[in-house]
């Protein structure tokens, strides 16, 4: 090697040392090591070290933005435990992690995309809404489902039309997530979609739609009352349950009618709903019914309800 070349190399080395580049490299290494080892503990995979999981997670959250680049490297994990840990940590770090995580949405690794979508739902930053909407039409139904979920958690109604359209998705997992999201958005425009959801052929969609109607609350009463006379079980039973939970007194008379229904399950759920509302007319009717009812399930519901009232 010529002297001139050697001189240039030495000069470059001095420049790196002077500029603190070498120091910052080792600092970065240290930080990475720290994040890695805290993350192993935070995942709480081993019984022996489980008491260290929560403190490790808190430390990572406290590190905040500093930890983000190293935590992002872990988004490709295949471990369910690690995925949940990342979702919790990023959710707690919050907004400062939003943009870097959005940057990972278009990863070539489908699992990384899915995890980034889920994390954005926990961060709840409105900047993620537009990027997430893009994923509602992806071929992988899990991606569509996670996008619905996260948009629901963010709760920004600008995504309403896109999310509500997923109530027609061919996969029940997506329809369920869309139903949950519509409830989180608490937008009355969601009612017709959710009422239809009560008749879905998969129970997860039916149950989620019922819960979401409760989130929207009073405006849902009228369409639910309509279902009392225009639907069959299990949709009818969900409508009865929802009316009970909404506790609107004007629903008492139609529910009283259901106490006389031929179907034992309908009578049982009407008992439960009337007891939930707590109106005296309902309670009296239930007490009267106790004397004549013979079906074991209805009887158990009557006893439960009267026990509660006493």
């Amino acid at each position, binding site marked *: 090697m010529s002297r001139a070349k050697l001189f240039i190399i030495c000069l470059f080395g001095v420049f790196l040392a002077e500029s603190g580049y070498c120091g910052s490299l080792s600092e970065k290494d240290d930080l990475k090591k720290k994040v890695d*080892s805290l993350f192993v503990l935070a995942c709480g995979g081993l019984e022996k070290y489980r008491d260290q999981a929560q403190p490790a997670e808190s430390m990572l959250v406290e590190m905040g933005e500093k930890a983000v680049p190293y935590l992002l490297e872990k988004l490709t994990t295949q471990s369910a435990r690690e995925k949940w840990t990342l979702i919790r940590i990023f959710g707690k770090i919050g907004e400062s992690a939003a943009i870097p995580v959005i940057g990972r949405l278009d990863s070539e690794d489908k699992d990384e995309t899915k995890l980034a979508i889920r994390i954005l739902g926990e961060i709840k930053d409105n900047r993620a809404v537009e990027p997430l909407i893009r994923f509602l039409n992806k071929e992988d139904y899990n991606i569509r489902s996670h996008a619905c979920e996260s948009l629901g958690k963010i709760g920004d109604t600008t995504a309403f039309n896109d999310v509500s359209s997923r109530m027609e998705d061919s996969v029940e997992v997506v329809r*369920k997530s869309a139903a949950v999201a519509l409830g989180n958005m608490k937008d009355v425009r969601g009612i017709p979609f959710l009422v239809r959801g009560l008749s879905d052929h998969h*129970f*997860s969609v039916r149950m989620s739609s019922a819960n979401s109607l409760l989130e929207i609350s009073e405006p849902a009463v009228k369409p639910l009352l309509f279902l009392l006379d225009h639907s069959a079980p*299990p949709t009818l039973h969900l409508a009865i349950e929802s009316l009970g939970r909404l506790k609107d007194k004007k629903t008492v008379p139609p529910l009283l009618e259901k106490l006389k229904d031929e179907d034992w399950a309908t009578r049982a*759920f009407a008992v439960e709903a009337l007891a939930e509302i707590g109106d005296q007319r309902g309670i009296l009717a239930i007490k009267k019914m106790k004397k004549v009812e013979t079906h074991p399930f209805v009887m*158990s519901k009557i006893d439960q309800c009267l026990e509660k009232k006493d």
Partner: protein
Amino acid sequence: MRDPFLVVFILYLLLASTPRVCSEEASDSLYASGSGFEEVLTDALRCIKMTPGDLVFRDDYVDVDSFRLELVDHFMRTPMATKSFNRQWLSDWKGATPEQRRFSLPRMCADYLKMRRKEETLKFEDTSVLRKLNSENERLLQEHGKVLKKLPEPLRRCVTELFEDIVHSQIRTARAFDQLSDEERMFVRENLPVILLEDVEDEFKTPEELEELGDYEEQLAEEMMPYLAKTDVAKIIYAGDRLSFATQLCMPRLRQYLACQPEPKPLVKDKKDKANDLILRLQTSRGELIIGGFGSSKYSGSPAIVIDLGGDDEYCISVDSTKEFASSVIIDLEGDDVYHADGDFVYGSGFFGHGILVDLLGDDTYLTNNFSLGSGLFGVGVLVDEQGNDKYFGDTFGQGAGSFGMGFLVDMEGADQYSGALFVQGFGFVSGLGALIDSSGNDNYFAGGRYKDILRYKDHYISLSQGFAYGLRPMMSGGIGMLFDLSGNDVYTSDIFGQGSSYWFSLGTLMDAEGNDKYVSFQYAQGAGTHLCLGILEDGSGDDVYISHGVSQGCGHDLALGMLWDKSGDDNYVAQSLSQGAGSANGFGILVDEGGDDGYYVSIKDNTQGYGNPRRDYGSVGMLLDLSGKDRYIGNGKDSTWWTTPSKWGVGIDR
């Protein structure tokens, strides 16, 4: 002379081509026992605003890998039909001849291992390949023809035909790896056992060390996946089945020979061999061929064929690691024998080859390590023990365990003791099926006690045994694990994961048909599915006792089915939590007791006896259904009562 057997074989091929994946008809008739189960199920579901049509899972919650079994997917889509698997199997077993029950299991179960992604089915090929074996046979006759001619005909035929089939199975097995280079095949051979074996020292390692180890094994698995996907499991099973069938053909001849009270003359010249009561000892291209007499003999080394006519014998066999695709057959006709393992992969063990061990009479003791006693890892392993009170000891992967192959342990009679640490007693791993079938006797099954469950507990051991199936989450779907005990008062003991349970796209089943049985476990047991899979424990008649701590007795966790079904008898169920009809994380947990005066006892009411917890914004399903009898409860239930619990969603019906 062999033609009649070929005809039988071909007829059997035709029978075997009938699809065995349980049909919809089979599942429809699942409840046709007159117990009224279907009606009770519909009622129970109405109580939680559901219908029977809601009890379905998807088979594509994650991307479908190359190892997914069609049968598992079928039952994921129709989980309530899973019980029909046991019924179908039992019907096949009952319909088979006595010899088929012992030796045709690879064929009986072949369709269970049909891959979802591979279009070709496990069709058994014609026997034309046998013609290619002439040269090896000619060589055997050239080298040893004179000696062989001196053997009584039944013995000569058994030895020569078994030899032929060993050669055949080795050629066929090698062809299963045609798509892999030598390096790839060696990589798989060296590393799949590494993934399966545990280390007792793990409990002393630091989190970083364990993380590193986990990463290493994950990397190994990832690297292996493409090679494993190229392995032709059908060819492996075909080859193993052929050897098993050849053994089946030998058995009547040997029985007939014994019935004539023969006095065979020794054909060995070596004094030691004479002293060891050997009649024949030949060195061949595929290993030694040995025939032992009626006295006590000792066997060691790695023989290809051993036929022992009687006496209390001692075996200390090892596998010849220099021979790839090696296969062996041991037939011991009488005596109280002791089988010591000199290393792994012995005694009815197929590892890149096949192993058949038949022991007809006597109280035998099997002392082994890993991959033994009906173990098929890239091979088929069959152990048949006909009579006697036997003791089976092993460590990991054995007593009916299979991956990329099949492993069967069939014990026909006697009060037997089975003891192992991990992946034993009916265990199915990726692309594999493992079954332990005990036909009669009061038996004792123990699995665990060696490898600590460092993930969950300080003082419990992983078992993953006794009708347990397992996949490598999330990379490779699992297999099928079956433990079938057909009669006797039996005791089953496991710790973490066992007794009709499963993990990751697999099916684990334990069926005990008769007897007053006792099931003891700690967690993930007694009809438990954990993470997208199916686990079922079915008990026919008898007054049974079920004891577990949690996630047991009809518990499905994470989009999985866990079902405990007891048909009759006065039974007692004891658990602490998340049991007796408990669904968790969108799983279905179902406990059905059809008849008898039963007792149900739990210490935590909040998540038992009809409980489902919420997850993924909806719920799980837990049902306890007692169809008749006067029953006692500590918990949520009550005799002749219907109840729901404040969970998403739990229900119980006691009729």
